[in-house]
């Protein structure tokens, strides 16, 4: 029995249970058993959930276990013991045997695969029967239990409620666990990297040249993994240049939209501004590399900066700043709008002008929300990849000249992980260490931002 068949059967059993529960409950009502605590529909849902959910959960857990068991059984068989020891070759043959056994291919290229295919098929059938049969039993047991509970007084509604709450908890746990999984996957590779390169060299070194040599006697074979130039480039582009663009423009557009624009203009401008957030970053990347970067280079040459490069921090930062504007402006918009009207009236009634009111009353009151928005925008900007890959360049310069080329953490990660890699070299593993540090930084920024925003929200409620 394949697991897919088991899945279908479980759902069928559950559906049958739901139907039975429904008609039983309806029968109770018709036979004058008094008022039902729960409508027949709830009894049906209760039976369905009891039949389907435990069995489906079991199947989900069983699928990876079964693969292990089948592989183990095949390798333990007489034919399996003759397979090559080399991991890659063995996995290849096993994969082919699987396809042959399940009928996805008609004939195998490797004779080994053809030889073990029957063994494979047999093991697959055996464990499939065990797993699928158990799932089916679970479904039937759940259905039977639920069906015995169909009574007029049974509170199926609250039973369903509990199931639904469980499902909602599971849904939110998945997001959280995924975050945890991401951290762990970064962490383990990073630990391997730090076992090859000292953490202090990585965190405080100012030289970045992640080449590792093919031969041990080659020049520069050790490579240099000082990440300071990368983080400087990231901060320079994402937190300095982009913010110099995004904070004033975003804030001013938020002020205009909330305080000055007539309602009709606002209803047109605000969605248009938010369209900026929907432009794919790769399109911003083109724009930065093909349009803005040459302009910036010409400007740099024009004002006598001979080192102006066509891949510059300024070009990437400017475009990134534009991209970030909607983040800043929509957060600022929300927090300005949350400042009570009474505050504004109070200031206007004192004879303050609108801009005085904004500068001296509204902005100070909205400041925590604005700061939260800016921090979120910074964390978005330093994690941004496409624009900097296309426009910022690759040379790890430690420079404050915005017309020079700098590189960022995300750009280097892309460089390190595209093409062929060896996972035992620090060159590849460095990408994970960079990713980990970047993740920690953006996580901290997000936490601070959320904290700031939340404290602010409490202030006016």
């Amino acid at each position, binding site marked *: 029995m394949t697991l897919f068949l088991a899945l279908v059967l479980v759902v069928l059993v559950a559906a049958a249970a739901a139907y039975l529960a429904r008609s039983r409950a309806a029968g109770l009502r018709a036979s004058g058993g008094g008022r039902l605590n729960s409508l027949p529909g709830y009894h049906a849902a209760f039976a369905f959930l009891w039949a389907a959910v435990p069995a489906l959960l079991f199947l989900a857990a069983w699928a990876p276990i079964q693969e292990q068991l089948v592989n183990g059984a095949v390798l333990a068989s007489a034919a399996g013991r003759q397979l090559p020891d080399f991991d890659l070759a063995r996995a290849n043959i096993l994969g082919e045997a699987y396809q042959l056994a399940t009928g996805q291919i008609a004939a195998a290229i490797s004779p080994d695969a053809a030889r073990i295919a029957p063994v494979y098929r047999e093991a697959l059938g055996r464990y499939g029967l065990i797993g699928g049969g158990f799932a089916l039993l679970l479904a039937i047991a759940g259905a039977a239990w639920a069906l015995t509970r169909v009574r007029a007084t049974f509170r199926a509604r609250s039973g369903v409620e509990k199931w639904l709450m469980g499902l909602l908890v599971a849904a939110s746990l998945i997001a959280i666990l995924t975050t945890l999984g991401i951290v762990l996957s970064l962490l383990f590779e990073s630990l391997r990297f730090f076992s090859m390169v000292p953490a202090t060299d990585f965190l405080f070194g100012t030289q970045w040249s992640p080449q590792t040599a093919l031969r041990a006697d080659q020049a520069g074979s050790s490579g240099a993994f000082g990440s300071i130039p990368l983080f400087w480039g990231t901060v320079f582009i994402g937190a300095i240049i982009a913010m110099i663009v995004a904070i004033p423009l975003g804030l001013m557009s938020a002020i205009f939209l909330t305080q000055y624009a*007539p*309602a009709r203009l606002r209803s047109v401008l605000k969605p248009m501004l938010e369209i900026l957030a929907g432009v794919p970053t790769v399109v911003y990347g083109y724009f930065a590399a093909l349009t803005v970067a040459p302009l910036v280079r010409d400007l740099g040459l024009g004002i006598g900066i001979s080192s102006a490069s066509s891949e510059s921090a300024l070009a990437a930062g400017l475009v990134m700043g534009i991209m970030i504007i909607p983040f800043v402006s929509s957060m600022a918009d929300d927090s300005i709008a949350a400042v*009570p009207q*009474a*505050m*504004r*009236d*109070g*200031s*206007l*009634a*004192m*004879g*303050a*002008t609108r801009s*005085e009111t904004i500068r*001296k*009353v509204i902005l*100070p*009151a909205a400041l925590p929300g604005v700061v939260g928005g800016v921090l979120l925008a910074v964390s978005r900007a330093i994690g941004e990849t496409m624009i900097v890959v296309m426009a910022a360049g690759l040379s790890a310069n430690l420079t404050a000249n915005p017309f020079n080329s700098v590189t960022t953490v995300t750009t280097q990660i892309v460089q390190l992980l595209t093409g062929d890699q060896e996972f035992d070299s620090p060159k590849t593993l460095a990408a994970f260490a960079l990713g980990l540090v970047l993740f920690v930084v953006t996580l901290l920024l997000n936490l601070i931002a959320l904290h700031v925003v939340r404290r602010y929200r409490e*202030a006016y409620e």
Partner: protein
Amino acid sequence: MTKEMQPVTPTTPVPFPSTAIAADAAQDDAGIAKEDTAWTQRPEPTPHLDEAVDSNPTAGEPLGQGAPKMRAQDIKVFYGEKQAIRGVSIDVHEDKVTAFIGPSGCGKSTFLRCLNRMNDTIPGARVTGRIELDGQDINSPDMDVVQLRARVGMVFQKPNPFPKSIFENVAYGPRIHGLAPSKADLDTIVEKSLRRAGLWDEVKDRLTESGTALSGGQQQRLCIARAIAVDPEVILMDEPCSALDPIATAKIEELIHELRGRYAIAIVTHNMQQAARVSQRTAFFHLGELVEYGKTADIFTNPREQRTQDYITGRYG
């Protein structure tokens, strides 16, 4: 006396025959006489308005002489298509407290907001008619609205101190209007304003604390101090006590008495006893019209209009 009184003509037919008024009056007298024994048995016919008026020795003050501080003529206010005020004319006098009373939605707050053009801040609001401050049209292009609001201050229904220190709240107006050339001047203005608002003794040791940390009544007095700090000529108060407890209310009322004479005050209130206690003039609004305007004592003890009588005796509102 008749010169200041605005001619008011009843626009709706009198709803009750005059015998009903006589019966009401008789019941009122009986109610007061039997109050000690009978108050549990039947609803209060009058909410102690006579006592409130009696407690206010200024309620019967003769109407002021000379030109009014502010004069509104035939004011109409529209919110979009809806008309909120239907031709109101009122004078506000220099050394008087003028109370605007009336049921909810009668337009009294809207009218008050016309006097310093706060209706400008409401999209779709339109004001017609002429409002003069010392004879000058406040809606004319020559009038700087910023200057107008410095001269005609406002205190709102809910205390709205800025989220700044107590000192900065009061210093806000003098700073934006450049009234204090030096720090010492500013200190003087802040102290004087807080003293006048009766708040100095309570906050003098914690001027750097946030204004929002004060109690409701203190916050409202802070807002009054803030309004006073720019040395206005008129103070508009829009239900200044509606969010306050009785003790805080009493303090504000006391304060209004003290401020009278220095500023022309116009106060909107839902609380008729309050109007009877603090004002010398009372204007009764109903459905966007000014029904009756006159000496407070007259309005509360001897109204000329049936609708006023019905309102102050609690028949509606």
